[in-house]
């Protein structure tokens, strides 16, 4: 009797299952609490938007399992293990913090699960510790800042004072800029790294920048620090005599309205702003606004393009971990950011960089694109990657 029931059950599941062959389990590993919760929410909104928009005609159902990293590497590693071993996901996406990426890297690499990085910008992740299973659809720290060094020199700026928080991303962002700026003939007359997330008052550093004799100041700050910095820079009246340039996260649309008028006139470089003029971006901005009521940030576009990369890989017929990893390395499309492709040597994204000025618009602050700088692949940085298989 028991055997008969089991047999009947087996038959029933095997009859029910055929549709499940085209189910794809996606693990979304993002911070939904902690300091980067706002980023995690934007990325998730973009990601699901892309799956809805592009995934419907693939015949594949995307079953998304969300896990909260809490921006804590040990927690994230536990969640990654759960996704890989227990949920048996076919592909993973997300990761905001580079610390979290460093923690899960070996686990992902060892298990051979493809991971689409939707934010974390550490240069080393697609450098010395690159993996054929890790594809980055966001940016790398150096990539965003490198074109800005040459551009600022071409604008006639010769002496620059730099400021950034003292951690890996801060140093990589500033290094990327100083490399090309000094190579072009510019001079860095002063450089300070402020204690990361321990600096509330930038006054001492601003007085130093003022006394340094620089033509301009180039900085990287993000989140709460960016808001404090931009407001304090303006309150000291430095903007007029010492123009403020920087990595575009400084005036991200996600929090530029908290900076208010202080952010007007700040010129920065980033791989995405919502005012880029192309049809794909117009469609994306409209869809994102309809879904969330907000203008999409660069984080939202990371999620959106990560989702689209997954769908593009699926469209080539890839259905399991191995084929998806191989297909993701060959993804390229024209998205809101312009023409994107993956560099086969590092698995990092290759994308144009936009120089933009924050200006007052009809409803709040908006971004005026000043220049589109051509896409350049990152230097290989010690990445040894197997050739792309076909």
């Amino acid at each position, binding site marked *: 009797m028991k055997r008969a029931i089991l047999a009947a059950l087996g038959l029933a599941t095997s009859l029910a299952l055929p549709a499940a062959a085209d189910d794809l389990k996606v693990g979304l590993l993002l911070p939904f*609490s902690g*300091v980067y*919760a*706002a980023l995690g*929410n934007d990325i998730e909104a973009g990601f699901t938007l892309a799956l809805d928009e592009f995934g419907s005609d693939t015949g594949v159902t995307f079953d998304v399992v969300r896990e909260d990293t809490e921006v804590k590497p040990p927690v994230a590693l536990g969640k990654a293990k759960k996704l890989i071993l227990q949920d048996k996901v076919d592909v993973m996406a997300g990761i905001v913090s580079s610390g979290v990426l460093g923690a899960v890297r070996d686990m992902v690499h060892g298990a051979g699960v493809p991971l689409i990085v939707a934010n974390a910008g550490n240069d080393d992740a697609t450098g010395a510790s690159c993996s054929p299973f890790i594809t980055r659809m966001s940016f790398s720290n150096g990539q965003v800042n490198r074109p800005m060094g040459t551009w600022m020199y071409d604008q006639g700026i010769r002496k620059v004072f730099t400021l950034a928080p*003292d951690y890996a991303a801060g140093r990589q962002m500033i290094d990327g800029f100083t490399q090309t700026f000094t190579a072009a003939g510019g001079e860095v007359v002063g450089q*300070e*790294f*402020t*204690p990361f*997330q*321990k600096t*509330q*008052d930038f*006054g*001492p*550093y601003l*007085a*130093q920048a003022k*006394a*340094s004799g620089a033509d301009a100041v180039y900085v990287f700050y993000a*989140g*709460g620090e960016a*808001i*404090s910095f931009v*407001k*304090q820079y303006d*309150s*000291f*009246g430095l903007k007029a005599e010492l123009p403020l340039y920087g990595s575009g996260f400084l005036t991200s649309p*996600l*929090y530029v*309205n*908290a*900076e*208010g*008028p202080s952010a007007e006139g700040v010129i920065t470089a980033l791989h995405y702003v919502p005012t880029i003029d192309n049809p794909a971006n117009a469609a994306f901005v409209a869809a994102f606004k309809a879904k969330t009521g907000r203008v999409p940030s660069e984080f939202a576009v990371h999620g959106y393009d990560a989702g689209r990369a997954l769908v593009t890989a699926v469209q080539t017929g890839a259905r399991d971990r191995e084929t998806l990893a191989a297909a993701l390395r060959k993804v390229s499309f024209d998205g809101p950011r312009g023409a994107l492709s993956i560099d086969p040597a590092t698995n990092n994204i290759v994308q144009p960089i936009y120089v933009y000025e924050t200006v007052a618009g009809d409803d709040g602050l908006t971004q005026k694109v000043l220049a589109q700088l051509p896409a350049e692949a990152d230097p290989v940085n010690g990445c040894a990657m197997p050739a792309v298989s076909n």
Partner: protein
Amino acid sequence: MAHDPGFWMLQALNALQLSMLLFLLSIGLTVIFGLMHFVNLAHGSLYALGAYFGASAAAVGGFWLGFFVAPVAVAGVGVLLYSGLIRRMRKSGPMAQVLVTFGLIFALLDLTRLFWGDLALAIQVPQILAGRTALLGIEYPTYRLFIIGLGLSIFAALAFVLSRTQIGAMIRAGVDNDAMAACLGINVERLFFIVFCVGCALAGLAGVVAAPLLSVTPDMGLQILIPTLIVIVIGGLGSLKGAVAGSLIFGFVQTFGAVLAPQLASVLIYALLAAVLVIKPVGLFPAKG
């Protein structure tokens, strides 16, 4: 830049401004501890709440509404905390108190996230305090001068109340020996309650005053907690003089450390803290000799 007196003047004002902000925050914490022997680690969260209440009120009625609403609202939260939690915890040991208020930090942090979201808020500086003021040959942001002035006047008011009024004498008696004070007919419990509420209001005031300078984020209370604890440990628990001295030392060491030895900026203050703990474990100006 070393020969430019204006540069050093600017940095001294920066240091003073940071000191005054920390003073507003640490005075509440230190007096609550001195009087009630109660370690309220959630004090930083009250500061964050002050900033959020201030930002919400400022969005409706401008900076000055926020400026007055925030301390009152945070004092209200203080009343709730006191009657709901702290009165029950008064007799349990310091370890339980630390654990409860530590847990409270995270509960309040997530509550602010639920109510106000993850995105940073901002308060714009009112027109009269925007811009810069010429002072001794340099131009300094008016709003920062306002913070310095506010800190100094709160200090003066507290010093007056504590040393010249009857309630001040009662508080000093309570800090010195609460059992004896109670025997003399002072309602120590009510005194505690008043001091606790004033401490909370000052934390709320610090929050709303800091908001235009910094950004209003859920974790701002956590970020300010460590500096505040350093201030009261250096200054000595429970005393007004200690809170002022600790704030000034922290502000000047932090600011001039960042200028003169930037590589050591984040270490200096901790080294100083360790030195104070070794040489004078009770702090520089403890309330009880």
